[in-house]
């Protein structure tokens, strides 16, 4: 055999062998132990990497789950898009009982439509809520309401929210929203809230965030909450789900039974619901139509 070939083969072989030995030793020495459960849990998760759980993607969440499982309690961790079913499956795999959590949804708490809160000023800057918010208190003069430029729509990875052309308010699609909370964080005015979906999709909420005094708030928006407290009185005594503060009513979704009694008594029609509210029986009917912002389309 040609000595050149032999020499090269031997040299290369020796290099390969030594490299293999080094790699073997390095792999032994610096082996990273990964819990096999992480990979299994990852398969159970939706894989949307939406960040709604508060961890960087599904993998981060799976790691957090395993860590929590070792401590014996995973009740603080929740996967919003997967919901109750996913958490039950994860719990079953880890052998930990998981309490059933109520499904939640993003709710837009502003009723300032083009018609109810007509614009008085013009804005011709870039179509971004954060920029508009930094400049002034909004085209309709309300410093708390929706700016209508769609930062929430831009961040939604599930196409679950869109801007209504007629009203200039965002609309959440019930079947697509996974309550990951991205829109809640994106909204500079903090008008989106994650609330329980409610039994049979029945839920009631105050459709206003304006903390100004009633008269001031009404100047800019016909459906502003004026904090009169009529709904508080109407709420059944055993329930008492409504509280007043900052010239604004708030309905506690955990206490509310979605009876809808508060809706017709609201003088400004700032309480919204996903169902048609019952008409009050004793009083003569007025043509008082509360704003029912349908969330499902």
């Amino acid at each position, binding site marked *: 055999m040609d000595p050149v070939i032999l020499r090269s083969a031997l040299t290369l072989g020796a290099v390969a062998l030594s490299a293999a030995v080094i790699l073997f030793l390095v792999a032994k020495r610096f082996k990273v132990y990964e819990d096999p459960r992480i990979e299994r849990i990852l398969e159970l998760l939706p894989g949307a990497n939406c960040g709604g759980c508060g961890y960087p993607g599904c993998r981060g969440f799976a790691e957090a789950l395993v860590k929590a499982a070792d401590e014996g309690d995973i009740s603080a961790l929740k996967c919003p898009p997967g919901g109750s079913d996913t958490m039950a499956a994860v719990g079953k795999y880890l052998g930990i009982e998981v309490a059933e959590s109520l499904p939640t949804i993003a709710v837009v708490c502003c009723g300032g439509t083009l018609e109810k809160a007509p614009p*008085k*000023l*013009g804005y*011709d*800057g*870039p179509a*971004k809520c*954060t*920029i508009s918010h*930094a*400049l*002034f*208190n909004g085209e309709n*003069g309300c*410093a708390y309401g929706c700016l209508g430029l769609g930062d929430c729509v831009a961040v939604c990875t599930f196409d679950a929210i869109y801007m209504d052309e007629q009203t200039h308010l965002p609309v959440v699609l019930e079947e697509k929203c996974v309550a990951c909370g991205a829109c809640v964080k994106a909204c500079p005015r903090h008008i989106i809230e994650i609330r329980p979906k409610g039994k049979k999709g029945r839920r009631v909420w105050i459709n206003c965030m304006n903390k100004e005094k009633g008269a001031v708030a009404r100047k800019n928006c016909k459906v502003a909450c004026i904090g009169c407290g009529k709904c508080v009185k109407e709420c059944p005594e055993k329930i008492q789900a409504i509280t007043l503060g900052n010239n604004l009513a708030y309905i506690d979704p955990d206490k509310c039974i979605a009876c809808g009694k508060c809706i017709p008594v609201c003088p400004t029609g700032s309480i919204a619901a996903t169902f048609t509210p019952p008409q009050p029986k004793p009083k003569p009917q007025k043509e008082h139509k509360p704003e029912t912002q349908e969330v499902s389309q």
Partner: protein
Amino acid sequence: MKLRTFNQGGVHPPENKISADIPIKILGVPQQICIPIHQHLGAPAVPVVEKGDKVKVGTLIAKKGTAFISANIHSSVSGTVAKIDDVLDATGYKNKAVVINVEGDEWEDTIDRSDHLVPEIKLEPEEILKKIEEMGVVGLGGATFPAHIKYMVSNGRKSDTLVVNGAECEPFLTSDHRLMLERTDEIMIGIQIMMKSGQVDRAVIGIESNKPDAIENLRIKAQQFPGIEVIPLKVKYPQGAEKQLIKALLNREIPSGKLPLDVGVIINNVGTVLAIYEAVQKNKPLIERVVTITGKKLKTKGNFLVRIGVPAAMLLEALGEEIPEGTSKIISGGPMMGKALNSLDIPITKGTSGIILMDESEAWRREPVNCIRCAKCISVCPMGLEPYLLEKLAEREMFDRCEANAITDCMECGSCSYICPAARPLLDYIRYGKVNVMRIMRERR
């Protein structure tokens, strides 16, 4: 002779100094006045009066906060404090203000209200500074930086020159121009006061060449005083910005992130100089300022000496005019850096240099189209930044790269947005990026 100017960037918008020939008139006071407690750069002042308190003109109503950068605020009218409430101001948001019901016009006894000039400076440099601080004097050019701090942060750095800013490079505004014509003697004494307190022996007044009467006027007066020099400048925006003005007048460049003091310069606006004269020599707090009201559609224009807190609507009333048909934008400040107002009820503050009414044809921006990479924004940026790049980075929220590209050097002069042939909202995004970069930098500390 070739006129001096700064070397990098700049634009020349139509000057429109249509109110330059109108002498300053004194504006009256309304029934009720709102004085915001946050009229300056830095921390808001803390109210020291309560509902029902009697105040006179010049009474301290809000004391400077514990923060280093803050300023006192004085009552500009005499009367009774009605309430301390949130009031819509020029920021477009509600901020705390002291509301006073006006009764008569009674001044604090310490204030010298006479017209006669007080030329000799009796106070020592430290006492002058104390007086300026006490009287709530802030920079009246627009940034409203508390005036005494400019002299306090020296840390051993020695300054050799005082620069007086009479450039008034913003279109439309003429309040400084009128001051230079009508209050020349006071300004000259003010300059001497500042030269004494800053311990400098040279003062340079920079005035753009579109104000030849002011240049002439100050030049004649300056001959009587050693060390004061008047230099005419080529008309270019933003020449009134401190870095640009110092470059134009003294050919000294302030490095990024440094102050004028680092190159041995103290710089003040002519309005501030007058306020300092009144504070030191006449014991008069900063309770009024000159405001220009102008607009192409207005039949009459004006320059008014306005008490702080008077609603902007009163300026129009004083002209005897309504808002003209077709007005779609009202700006507080100059058209380049000012802020659009959402109501004429906002109070005039220490920083309001003018109220400008723009009609439909001037008010709206064109519809933005894609960037055509013409690089005009780069050539006009006075700070040597790349606005097209900063816009894109801020839009995509890449704030680390914004910081690396020196977004915090931007002084928001708006030259890039003004020149952009594609009408890109450059400054809007740069501001957005800047705010976020500043926040990130604060968090890092």
